[in-house]
């Protein structure tokens, strides 16, 4: 029997998505019974690694592109440009490929070869920014490229309100529908999009909510010798809307990753380990309640990382940005 052409589509496909873009979001929530420090506090994990390209960034990539399309700011033939060596690039590559845009990612020259390779396989072009300028340097480099060449459209996750909107409409709304009570929301602090968007939405349903950020404590080599004037606070991040903001060491993050694996069989990324570390700490402070941890991605992209077998985790990790 000859399969139908895609244009005629005579078969009903009620259970099939029309593209991966329809599968973004609606991620599962699972209780971490073995990780909760006390029975009276329920700890939950929102498994964002189950998005189609493997991370929470699918939500914002889709939202930023579709918002720009709807506003007429992004037309066929334009090239997407974003400073990213990680999940945002992979998510934008997925969206760009399905929708037919090109994508250029700006990343520090010392980003891992794996990440670069994956982005190239997904069709992205790579532009390197100086390694010693780190993430801030990649941001500044991309901003200059976008200014100089009108062909580029830069979603720019750090300043794009659609990033916050994706988490308000998606992540936050989903959690509000999945639980009858939330006392604490914990997410990793990168752009601030998850914390701002999901935090605002959940606060509407649970007014006493504590919004807590898990933030990486960077090693000295990552901080480098950049001047404070090169500092950067993402425009979408309003620290005043955070109730807690806690530093997490690389060693604590890895301990969290290991605890998730060993006690709940969840294979998560480094930032998820940090989020669970903070989630358990804040759970310990509660007499009773519900703590939700947003786990941004799975552990696959970190398999070749040096920390799994390292005796000194901090030393093994201090030269790189992990999330």
């Amino acid at each position, binding site marked *: 029997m000859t399969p139908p052409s895609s244009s005629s589509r005579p078969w009903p496909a009620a259970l099939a998505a029309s593209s991966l873009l329809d599968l973004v979001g609606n991620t599962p929530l699972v209780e971490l019974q073995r990780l909760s420090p006390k029975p009276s506090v329920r700890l939950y994990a929102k498994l964002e690694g189950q998005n189609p390209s493997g*991370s929470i*960034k699918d939500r914002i990539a889709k939202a930023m592109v579709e918002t720009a399309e709807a506003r007429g700011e992004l037309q066929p033939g334009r090239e997407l440009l974003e*400073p*990213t*060596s*990680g*999940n*945002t690039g992979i998510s934008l590559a997925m969206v760009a490929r399905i929708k037919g845009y090109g994508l250029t990612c700006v*990343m*520090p020259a010392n*980003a891992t070869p794996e990440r670069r390779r994956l982005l190239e396989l997904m069709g992205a072009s790579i532009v390197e920014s100086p390694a010693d300028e*780190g*993430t*801030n340097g*990649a*941001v500044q480099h991309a901003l200059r490229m976008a200014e100089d060449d009108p062909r580029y459209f830069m979603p720019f*996750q*750090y300043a794009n309100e659609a990033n916050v909107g994706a988490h308000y409409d998606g992540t936050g709304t989903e959690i509000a529908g999945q639980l009858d009570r939330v006392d604490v929301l914990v997410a*990793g*602090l*990168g*752009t601030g999009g998850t914390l701002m968007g999901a935090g605002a939405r959940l606060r509407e349903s649970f007014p006493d909510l504590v919004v807590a950020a898990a*933030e*990486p*404590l*960077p090693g*000295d080599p*990552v*901080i*480098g*010798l*950049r*001047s*404070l*004037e*090169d*500092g*950067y*606070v*993402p425009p979408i991040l309003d*620290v*005043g809307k*955070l*109730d*807690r*903001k*806690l*530093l*997490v060491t690389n060693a604590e993050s890895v301990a969290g990753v290991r605890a998730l694996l060993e006690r709940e069989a969840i294979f998560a990324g480094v*930032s998820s380990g940090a989020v669970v570390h903070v989630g358990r700490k804040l759970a310990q402070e509660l007499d009773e309640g519900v703590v939700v941890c947003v786990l*941004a*991605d799975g552990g696959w992209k970190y398999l070749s990382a040096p920390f799994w077998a390292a005796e000194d985790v901090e030393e093994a990790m201090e030269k*790189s*940005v*992990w*999330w």
Partner: protein
Amino acid sequence: MTTVRIPPTLRPDAEGRREVTAGGTTVGEVLLDVAERFPALRARIFENGNIARFVNVYVGGEDIRTQDGLSTPVGDDATVILLPAMAGGVGR
């Protein structure tokens, strides 16, 4: 005395030290004590009487901006960490 950790960015203004000790019961007092001993640090850490925009200050691992700011209490055995504000998420 409180231990104050100085990021690489600010060490040239603190005689190259990785950490210094300082006295005070609040973050503000501790940092003023540091600034008195290392005057070049004052203009880097403070801006219009508050913490400069691109400096983050942590007590017990928590950002003082989500606590009581410069009035955040500091225990004797506490560590105050200074960090430059950096873009996160590029690695994600």
